[in-house]
């Protein structure tokens, strides 16, 4: 199956590393911000390799007959 996924790294818009374990505010790893270009590239390469190899499970939250978007709904084409 992995050979069938012709994956372009440019499609990876964001990578959030780690699980964190704080219960009061959302955290983000910042090591990568200061990493060398080589290290940064290796992170994305590892992600792409995982995307090509891991089995897929799709979750389908909500339902198709949800009402019109409420205030605060984001526009498409930009990750939240």
């Amino acid at each position: 199956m992995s050979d069938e996924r012709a994956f372009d790294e440019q499609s990876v818009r964001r990578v959030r590393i780690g699980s964190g374990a704080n219960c009061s505010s959302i955290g983000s790893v910042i090591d990568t911000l200061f990493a060398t270009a080589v290290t940064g590239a290796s992170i994305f390469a590892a992600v792409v390799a995982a995307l090509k190899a891991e089995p897929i499970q799709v979750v389908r939250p909500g339902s198709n007959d949800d009402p019109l978007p409420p205030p605060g709904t984001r526009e498409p084409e930009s990750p939240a």
Partner: protein
Amino acid sequence: MIVRYEPWGAWVKLESTAAIVALDRDGVRALGLDGGATWRGPPRSSAPLEVHLAVTSRCGAGCDGCYLDARPDGVEPPRAVIERELDAMRDAGVFTVAFGGGEPTTREDIDVLAAGARARGLTPVVTTSGLGLTEVRIDRLRSFAQVNVSYDGPDATYATVRGFDGAALAERAIEKLARAGIRVGVNVVLTQQSYPRLAETIERARTLGACEAQLLRYKPAGRAATVEYWTRRMRPDQARTLGPTLRALTTAHAGGGVSVRIDCALVPFLSADEELGQDAARLARFGIFGCEAAGALAAVTVDGLVGPCSFAKPSQLRAANLNGGYAVDAELGRWRAYNDAPTEPCASCSLRPVCKGGCKIVASFVTGSHGPDPECPRVLAYAKDRAT
């Protein structure tokens, strides 16, 4: 991997490496998938990626600045209630559930709840004070992906934040968890007293076996919402140095040291950094989240109500109705609407797409309004300019 469609593509939780990835539509198609109604229907607000779940309000630590005002006689929701909330998180497509409280390790069924979260495809993590963490209690934490111990600094520094001398107990807990083979991190609350010793604190945590340090801004909620806040919050001159401090920490711990995380409320402080303050795209690419209250982040109180974050007053939405209800709740929508279009000076800030206006909990306490973060260096400079 678990794929959750979004109007712009999909969020993907990887299993072989601890990471969450945003893919555009072409990337999703490369997986052989199609977003269907999510891509072609009207855009709708997404469920949170991460939920902070208060599994008890019981805690005997008595920390001065407890945001929940947890007490020894707090309440502990029945297991069945929490399991229904976990069901709702699974149905909504939540990826991570962070157990908190109160002191979550006082629950005798914490292991059952963590295993239940895993069985539902959720990644469970937990925060503990480390006080009273016996071998039995440690053994109950093995299903968690990570356990964070509250540790604001060695010896007297800890007491300046929490009001009691618990540093040695927290250190012992970090050691015991690491020795038990459990992935352990530390939560470090940054105050004007603890910030100067941050490098020493993280190095100490590393020697005890911690693999990660989560830096947290001190926030005026619960028992911290008093006049004491003004004597504990980071000073403006300290806030402006956060970028260089983070650079030094990551350099010191590169190649096997402690990984460093910042919380959502610290992101506005990066506006003072010459390099990062102008590069929201870089922050976004590496998954930095600013204020995601009612967006990628939600909280569930011990009463089962959904809030924008753990520090905010909850909405009337019941956690059991998270799937479906999250997108249409008016109060949660109000938070999202502001974050999507904050007022000046945030509106014109280059960091806005990531920062989203800074911490509204601080803003509400300090200025009385749901507006720009008054402790952000850029907001302070803007206010100074307008005053002259």
